[in-house]
């Protein structure tokens, strides 16, 4: 195995493990189901890295082809899970779409492989993963204003870096393919392509990790400020009632006939305020 490829794969495995660790930590702390998708995605991506390592040292040609296919399919699957996991921050998750995409991404390269079209099978698998990235990037770019309103500028810029690096990998992959190289399996003397591939791979993974952290931070902040706004609004109204009701009681007894009604109102509002404070503590 070429030194660049070996170190490139090792670095990618390490970065994917970092992504996996962050997703596990998010699930542990925030307990939201969307992190399960990210965990599955990062986990398959780590496995894809190991399959690339085995592929590099496999001496048997057929075994190498099989691991090349496994690498292609697992990378595509992991990207689907990670991208859809990040997408659930903005849209409802369509389980049907996830299942259909997963089946397509496994079955088509597998069928091509069984018909002996080895190179076509893993190139198709690799290409399709970039197509999915492009497909999912269209919606936020198309709905740019709404997307930018929901996240901070920092997240948006990291999102653009993720896109840029993925697009660059796609373009370089197509160029190298037409130069007679398969994605992730360059000839020994084609070290520039190899370097370019792993360098962009590392950049896109780092950008994806940073983007996912910023995204979670943004969404948590938005939720927090919405809750603060809602509770302060409701508490403001309750205290307003208490203020006026108290002022009314202070007024001349002759003018206010039914004081007990106001006292009951004050009592009820105190109960509502206590409930809001309890909610605030539970949602902290």
């Amino acid at each position, binding site marked *: 195995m070429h030194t660049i490829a070996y170190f490139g794969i090792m670095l990618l495995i390490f970065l994917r493990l970092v992504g996996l660790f962050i997703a596990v930590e998010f699930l542990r702390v925030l307990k939201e189901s969307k992190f399960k998708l990210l965990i599955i995605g990062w986990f398959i991506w780590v496995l894809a890295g190991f399959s690339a390592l085995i592929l590099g040292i496999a001496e048997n040609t057929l075994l190498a082809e099989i691991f090349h296919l496994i690498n292609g399919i697992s990378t595509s699957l992991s990207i689907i899970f990670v991208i859809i996991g990040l997408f659930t921050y903005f849209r409802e998750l369509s389980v049907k779409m996830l299942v259909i995409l997963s089946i397509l991404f496994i079955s088509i390269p597998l069928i091509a492989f069984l018909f002996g079209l080895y190179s076509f099978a893993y190139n198709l698998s690799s290409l399709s993963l970039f197509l999915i990235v492009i497909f999912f990037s269209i919606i936020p770019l198309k709905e740019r204003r709404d997307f930018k309103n929901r996240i901070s500028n920092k997240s948006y810029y990291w999102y653009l870096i993720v896109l840029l690096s993925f697009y660059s990998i796609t373009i370089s992959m197509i160029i190298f393919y037409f130069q007679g190289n398969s994605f992730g399996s360059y000839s020994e003397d084609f070290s520039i392509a190899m370097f370019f591939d792993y360098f962009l791979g590392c950049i896109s993974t780092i950008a994806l990790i940073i983007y996912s952290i910023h995204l979670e931070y943004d969404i948590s902040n938005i939720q927090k400020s919405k809750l603060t706004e809602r509770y302060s609004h409701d508490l403001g109204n309750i205290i307003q009632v208490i*203020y006026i009701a108290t002022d009314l009681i202070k007024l001349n007894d002759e003018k206010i006939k039914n004081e007990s009604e106001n006292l009951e109102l004050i009592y009820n509002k105190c109960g509502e305020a206590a409930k809001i404070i309890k909610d605030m503590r539970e949602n902290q």
Partner: protein
Amino acid sequence: MTTIFLVGDDLDIMTLFDKMLTNLGHKIVATAYNGEEAVDLFREFRELPDLILMDHRMPKKDGITAAQEILKLNKNSKILFLSADYTIKEEALALGAKDFIEKPINFDKLLNIIEKIISEK
């Protein structure tokens, strides 16, 4: 006697404002429980109220939108915003509201502001 139009969706607050202001010698000409109702009632007024006490967060139409429409109907309307949502203060004042008060507020302070606005020509 000052005529006041109350706009707000919190029934308790509206009822207490009505009681309190009436006790202090003001006249509540109408109460609207959302922005849409406020604009509709405002259109029907033969005699315009001296002051509109306006909340912001309301169903159907919020206070800012209702105030914009009311000021389009009559630019001399005196609108006093009373809301727990302090984020709209700048917007409320920019569109022509006389003042913005953040809830909760002591009634004495509210009365002072009402009297100050009414006395302005």
